[in-house]
């Protein structure tokens, strides 16, 4: 089969226009690429960079149909996203299987996220089935889609529009070998968990996201009120971005914000002790200095904790919205009080009162 890259469905095609290759009367189907189930060192390096949020657009697989091994017209077809981590997890899990992999154009986003946005969706699946001329390549009419693609896919519509029956595979690609034995999933294979390892893996991106504002604020604090204040700022941020994901299920209460307040308060206690035991300060000023971290740090940590909802695998929009209305006002009040005490202390120092 001759490779003709530009004949149809260019990768950059915006929108969901149906494939025009056959409408134009061309008989040349889209190129079929070849892949293996081997994960190379350079693949691993790419995964590492992806986790640190390095160049999102660099972790993209070309959409289209792929041959894994030596598939025949009777081999199974699997759908995937064009994000290297998703595609690589699938092909390595299929080690030793001859199969077709249909990579949808999800703009380099993983299956679940893309399904939520609709880019891993019915329209794109139907479009790729047409573009790849899948119906002419395989004899059967079944396509195995990862379960986490289901929020974007309506199987009744896919079968009506393309003739292909969607079978939902397990949540995790690594369960595929077991699943494929009799095409039945155990309840565990259908469940999404959020274990320690999955939470830790998100930490780099959480840190990178907040790094710049954290540095700016700690440097400012360093010059305004000294190294310990700068350290307090860094601690509050790290509590929200590192400790919080790591300890998530261990922190009491269900809501993310309340967990964040608790964690932030605990982290603030040593600073409160330190600031209130400054022998140079008069009594009222030590009291204020001790209260400042107890006001500011829980507010910062709780806000970061609340924002972690977007990275989890189980928060509903209804619940998160309730959290926002319940806790953001508390965060704002604490933060404002904390800033006011800080300013009072700073002004008193400037005025020579303390």
């Amino acid at each position: 089969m001759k490779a003709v890259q530009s004949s149809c469905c260019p990768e950059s095609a915006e929108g969901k226009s149906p494939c025009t290759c056959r409408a134009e009367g061309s008989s040349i189907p889209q190129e079929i690429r070849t892949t293996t189930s081997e994960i190379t060192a350079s693949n691993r390096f790419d995964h590492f960079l992806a986790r640190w949020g390095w160049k999102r657009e660099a972790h993209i697989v070309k959409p289209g149909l792929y041959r894994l091994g030596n598939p025949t017209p009777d081999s199974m077809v699997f759908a995937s996203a064009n994000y290297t981590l998703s595609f690589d997890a699938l092909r390595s899990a299929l080690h030793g299987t001859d199969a077709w992999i249909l990579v949808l154009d999800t703009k380099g986003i993983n299956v679940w996220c893309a399904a939520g946005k609709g880019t891993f969706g019915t329209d794109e699946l139907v479009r790729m089935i047409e573009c790849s001329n899948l119906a002419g390549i395989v004899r059967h009419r079944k396509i195995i889609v990862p379960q986490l693609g289901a929020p974007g896919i309506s199987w009744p519509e896919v079968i009506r529009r393309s003739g292909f029956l969607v079978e939902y595979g397990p949540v995790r690609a690594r369960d595929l070998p077991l699943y494929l034995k009799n095409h039945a999933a155990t309840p565990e294979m259908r469940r999404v968990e959020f274990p320690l390892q999955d939470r830790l893996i998100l930490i780099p991106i959480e840190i990178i996201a907040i790094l710049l504002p954290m540095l700016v604020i700690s440097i400012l604090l360093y010059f305004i009120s000294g190294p310990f204040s700068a350290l307090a700022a860094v601690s509050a941020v790290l509590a929200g971005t590192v400790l919080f994901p790591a300890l998530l299920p261990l922190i009491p209460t269900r809501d993310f914000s309340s967990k964040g307040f608790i964690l932030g308060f605990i982290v603030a206690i040593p600073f409160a002790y330190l600031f209130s035991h400054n022998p140079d300060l008069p009594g009222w000023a030590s009291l204020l200095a001790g209260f400042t971290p107890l006001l500011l740090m829980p507010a910062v940590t709780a806000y970061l904790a609340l924002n972690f909802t977007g990275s989890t695998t189980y928060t509903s929009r209804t619940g998160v919205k309730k959290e926002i209305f319940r806790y953001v006002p508390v965060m704002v009040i604490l933060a404002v009080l904390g800033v006011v005490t800080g300013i009072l202390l700073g002004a008193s120092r400037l005025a020579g009162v303390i």
Partner: protein
Amino acid sequence: MFNSYHETTLRYHPERCINCRRCIQVCPHGVFGEGSERVALLREPACMECGACALNCPVQAIDVQSGVGCAWAMISAAIRGKDMDSAECTCGGGSDSCCGGSPDETPCCTNE
């Protein structure tokens, strides 16, 4: 107290169910379970409103207002004076947006 996740927008109309069990297959949180003539709603509070069950039910026996439970997206929408419910996770927008995503597809929309 300190649990905002009791209620969801999930609505199940058992009288329409034809027991095809697609909802059990697609739900990532085991919200539906098998029953003799129709599926049973077992763990409603665990629903994350992903919308998979409703979209894949062939007889519209399930309704849910699907959306992303991402505080950051909703707060940014509110700040910009937009409707919080239409807020979209930033994943997939610009080239340097989020979505860590493990090989096992952890969903996320980490801040930009």
